[in-house]
């Protein structure tokens, strides 16, 4: 029996932790929608190109960070190998995109 109460305790602790986490995720979501909105508004406002493009790219990167770290839990424990591999992929992705946007057009 003692076993069970223990688990129950843990469970209730876990439950509150999960609720807490869920709250974070809803906030994340609201932020993402807000970011999206800002990005669209900036483009709709037809501001100068040199400002808009880096700005919306930055918003995208932050949004993706939210996705990875909150929705996909990359911030949690047990994700060390995963995040090093994902960052590996991102690094190669970045190098690829960089070359294609620079040296493919002479």
């Amino acid at each position, binding site marked *: 029996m003692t076993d069970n109460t223990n688990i129950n305790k843990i469970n209730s602790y876990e439950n509150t932790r999960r609720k807490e986490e869920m709250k974070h995720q809803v906030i994340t979501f609201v932020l993402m929608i807000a970011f999206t909105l800002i990005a669209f508004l900036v483009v709709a406002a037809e501001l100068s190109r040199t400002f808009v493009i880096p700005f919306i790219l930055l918003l995208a990167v932050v949004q993706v960070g939210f996705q990875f770290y909150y929705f996909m839990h990359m911030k949690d424990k047990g994700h060390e190998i995963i995040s090093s*591999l994902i960052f*590996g*992929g991102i*690094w190669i992705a970045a190098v*690829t995109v960089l*070359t294609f946007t620079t*040296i*493919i057009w*002479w």
Partner: protein
Amino acid sequence: MSLASTQKKSFGAVLWDYLTTVDHKKLGNMYIVAGAFFFILGGIEALVIRIQLMKPENDFISAGLYNEMITMHGTTMIFFAAMPILLGLMNAIMPLQIGARDVAFPFLNSLGFWLFLFGGIMLNLSWFLGGAPDAGWTAYTPLSTQSPGHGVDFYVMGLQLSGAGTLIGGINFLVTIVTMRGPGMTYMRMPLFTWTTFIASILILFAFPALTVGLFLLMFDRMFGSAFFDVALGGNSIIWQHLFWIFGHPEVYILILPAFGIFSEIFPVFSKKRLFGYSSMVFATFMIAFLGFMVWAHHMLTVGLGPVANSIFAVATMAIAVPTGIKIFNWLATMWGGSIRINSAMLWSLAFIPSFTIGGMTGVMLATATADYQYHDTYFVIGHFHYVIVGGTLFGILAGLHYWWPKLFGKVLHEGMGKIAFWIFFIGFHLTFFVQHFLGLMGMPRRYWVFLENQGLDTGNLVSTIGAFLMTIGTIIFIINIVYTSIKGEKASADPWGTGRTLEWAVSSPPPEYNFKKLPLVRGLDAYWIEKMDGNDKMTPAEPLVDIHMPNGSILPVTMTIGFFIASFGFIYQVDNKSWLALVFIGFAIALGSMLIRSLKDDHGYHIHKEDLEREAD
């Protein structure tokens, strides 16, 4: 699936067993056998090339056929011979080395194998269906988009299939190494072959998607009229070159790193000394992999990317000499002070050091961009990469085969024949490829169907051809050795070399299907050696004898693959007649149907019971 099925099984049963197996050791052997088959095909193609180039203006084969030969030789050797044999060794050995009972995804493992095999069959069917691809293994656009007939289509679909298989294999190995390491097997206690498997798998994971995309674009351009490489519609043919080499350069390290791993196993065992600088070896492997992704444009130095790009890529390329050098010197230091025994496995490994060093050094010479304007697309490059690929990867494969043969097939290869085969092959190898460096500098570009008379290229080419024949003889002796051994060879003990250091030598040869009756407790690097030094003849078990959970065999990987195989034909031939699209639908129906069955039908595997295990002899 029963244990100890000593009674003879019917042919049908054996075949069914191989079609449905998910056992990593069987799959490993199947990879090796299929890879060897493709190696012989690629080798025969190489011979045809060398015969054609035996004398100036030879007309042994036609120009078109020559281009098909080189394309098929390169593609077959890289994708269907060297890589599968390495994957086979990884499959068979790596789980044993980390003390695992299987890989993480036995089902996917089998799927990966079948995709590779059918990809290879697909590619080679092109010989019989109107002509093989003829745009080089690099399939540069727009030559490849304009190539008439279906040859290049077979190249695209064949590589797409096998590429998917390889990707699956890579992910499987990664997960296996992360989660399935046995008790006590920390990362820094993993044998080097496991490490190189791990890192080569990372390379596979990140390199193959670029090829996948490139092949898709090529497929769309050739089969569905898109305009990626069609200059008239704004396309750009350089995109293909980038995508191909973003894949292609890491690919050459996918070929060499596992071979490095094999040598790192063999040198310690036959020097009776632990690997010198273990952690720097791991680090160097990571460095090679990391840098390997940032140098691909060294294949494109003459494309006209501009001096900035050329300089960056040239210098980055040269940097790879540093970690590779660390490895070479660590191997030498491993042997220094050791007690070296030379047998066939060791001969191949020893021959690797000078051969690969030459190849690596010509690689660094190629990286000096200014000089590469001369070397590029000449026989100098052919010389370079055969030195690293044959002298590195192929020597590694042969060393690994001799070394692990007893573990894979239960018998030790014949030493005498092994040595004769080695010497003939080794001499032939240097004869063939050493002169090619000079041929290149004397003005012989690669992919030349004929070279003209009176250009001073005759002697060199003849020498090269003679060497190729010596390599053939060497290979044939090796094959005879295999046949002889499997008939006459003696059964091998668990540790036939006597100085085995890693876990695979702690289980019988060949190992039982569950690998370890009780998972062993690993107490350090070279786990088995440690036990031996402590006077134990066995590993200490980490668990009591319990039921062993085993995955079920399945025919679905084969049916899935056949589905994709059929669909590929549909894609290829719908260009001629839209009704071939039916095959696409049929093929996908079969493949998706198999997937559906797989996901709907629960597969919990089965257990080998404790009682049965107890009855088994050790």
